């Protein structure tokens, strides 16, 4: 653990106050989400714990021995507790779909860049076609075909996301393929797979990490958007997006807290991730370096 802080990249990362703030934000929010069942005064997914009489109570309301710090929603769920549980879903969906699309995109990008020719044509044209549609539209089409559910959301976001990795990795691979260490590996007798995964992959990973962080934020927003549109998770297990949606109709009827607090939570997550992502890009992208 001590060694990590001697690492130049890590040291450079901690030089930026914004990035450290972002990292702290992410860590705090993630921990809060992971330990939601210990922190939250109420389990909003357990229908037995809900009391409809507590619906639309303002922040600070006390009932059934619970203090509703951020008020309650139409089902009598505490907004604070629901945010904590909702963040679990948001972060889980964001992370899993990003990892999946990063893996798929990186592999396809490596193949396209390394072999070139027709394979490259095929993969890259597919990517171009996909990029010419708005991401949300593609996700909506997928969910229209396969239906709702957490797994479907992850699939939809994965499909939307792979293109960004594939394009970047292909570009870096094209550059790395020309370097002499690749020739050296060929002369030594290393096969195509070995060259691609053992030699080139570690050298194109830096931008993947940068895109990954930024894409997590995007995935979380996309999940929220889909949930907001009612295509996401089941109503009994609201995520941040569906929370914002449920409060949206009553936003101007005086019940502002139902939408605003989940919105702030979403904003903080995305901001934290983007602050970290920006810093990583500055450090890992040699083109931006002096």
């Amino acid at each position, binding site marked *: 653990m001590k060694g990590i802080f001697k690492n130049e990249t890590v040291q450079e990362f901690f030089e930026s106050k914004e990035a450290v703030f972002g990292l702290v934000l992410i860590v705090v929010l993630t921990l809060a989400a992971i330990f939601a069942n210990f922190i939250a005064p109420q389990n909003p997914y357990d229908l037995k714990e809900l009391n409809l009489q507590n619906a639309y109570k303002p922040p600070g309301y006390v009932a059934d021995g619970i203090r509703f710090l951020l008020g309650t929603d139409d089902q009598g769920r505490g907004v604070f507790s629901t945010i904590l549980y909702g963040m679990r879903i948001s972060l889980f969906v964001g992370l899993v779909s990003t990892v999946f699309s990063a893996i798929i995109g990186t592999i396809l990008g490596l193949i396209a860049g390394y072999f070139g020719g027709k394979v490259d044509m095929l993969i890259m044209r597919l990517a171009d076609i996909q990029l010419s549609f708005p991401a949300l539209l593609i996700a909506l089409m997928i969910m229209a075909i396969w239906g709702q559910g957490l797994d479907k959301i992850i699939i939809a976001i994965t499909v939307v996301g792979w293109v960004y990795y594939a394009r970047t990795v292909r570009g870096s691979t094209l550059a790395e393929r020309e*370097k*002499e*260490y690749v*020739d*050296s*590996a*060929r*002369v*030594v*007798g*290393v096969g195509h797979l*070995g060259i691609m995964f053992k*030699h080139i992959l*570690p*050298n194109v990973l830096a931008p993947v990490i940068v895109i990954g962080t930024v894409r997590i934020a995007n995935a979380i927003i996309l999940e929220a958007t889909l949930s907001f549109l009612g295509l996401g998770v089941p109503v009994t297990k609201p995520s941040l997006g569906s929370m914002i949606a449920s409060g949206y109709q009553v936003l101007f009827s005086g019940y502002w807290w139902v939408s605003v607090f989940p919105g702030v939570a979403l904003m903080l997550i995305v901001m934290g991730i983007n602050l970290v992502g920006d810093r990583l890009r500055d450090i890992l992208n040699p083109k931006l370096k002096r």
Partner: protein
Amino acid sequence: MTDSLVKVENLKKYFPVKLGVFEGWHFENGKLKRKRLYVKAIDGVSFEIEKGDTFALVGESGCGKTTTGRTIVGLYKQTDGKIYFRNKPIDEVLKKSPKDFKKNVQMIFQDPYSSLNPRMKVYNLISEPLRVHKLVSSRAEEREKVEEIMVNVGLEPEYKSRYPHQFSGGQRQRIAIARALATEPEFIVADEPISALDVSIRAQILNLMEDLQEKYGLTYLFIAHDLSVVRHISNKTAVMYLGRIVEMGNTDEIFTHPLHPYTKTLFDSIPSVEKVKQPLKVTIEGEVPSPINPPPGCPFHPRCPHAMERCKKERPEPKEVSPGHFVSCFLY
């Protein structure tokens, strides 16, 4: 058949030129056709390397010396001609038993900053060839072997878990040499192995290469542009110009009796501490023509001070002027 280790016969390597979408189109017999342009990097090169030789290929950038080396180790496929390794054509060997060929033929690259994967530790860089060719049966044996090779090229075995960027240029070239040496090859193509290194380090690497040659009975194809280095290390020299060999023979013979006008020019232009305060001789003006459209006849005729009418039309064939000394020039 002679007893040569490597034999190159009329080797040609053309690279297609990438044209823009609208370039190269023309009408021929009323049909739209596209002209194909080629960089003639090597245009008919023949030579033989005997076991134990250090065969030097010299010339300026773009003369095809590096392409020749890369084609011989199989990084490029030749357009035409034959390359024999131990009297077997390498295209067949590469098809039948590529591992066997790659175990015996290795390469040292010019720039040790780009020829070593920056994300691999020294240990893995050196053990990779051992693993690929299954030359070791256990981890312990592998470690022993890597350490032995490191000692042989003058690297401290304790540095094995470092990354290339933690070494100086000379040490990196030692790592590259260790990597090439790991499979105990017979033949090594060294492409300008010292020209990216600092002056005070060059002698160290040259001496190391000589020591290793003696120890392992290596045969080198030594590609260089620096004539004094060639004189020092090689026993055979071929001078290349625009994809062709213009003069070839024993190094001592070439250096004491250079015949081709281009060879003479090279000797005149190279700055040397042995020519203190002598003005640099400029015997030829102009620059090397493009290998896309090489001049007809002798490739050197547009710059040659002795060019004759004949040189513009005919291509001079190599002529043996004294035993083992070939010149491609109509003057002889």
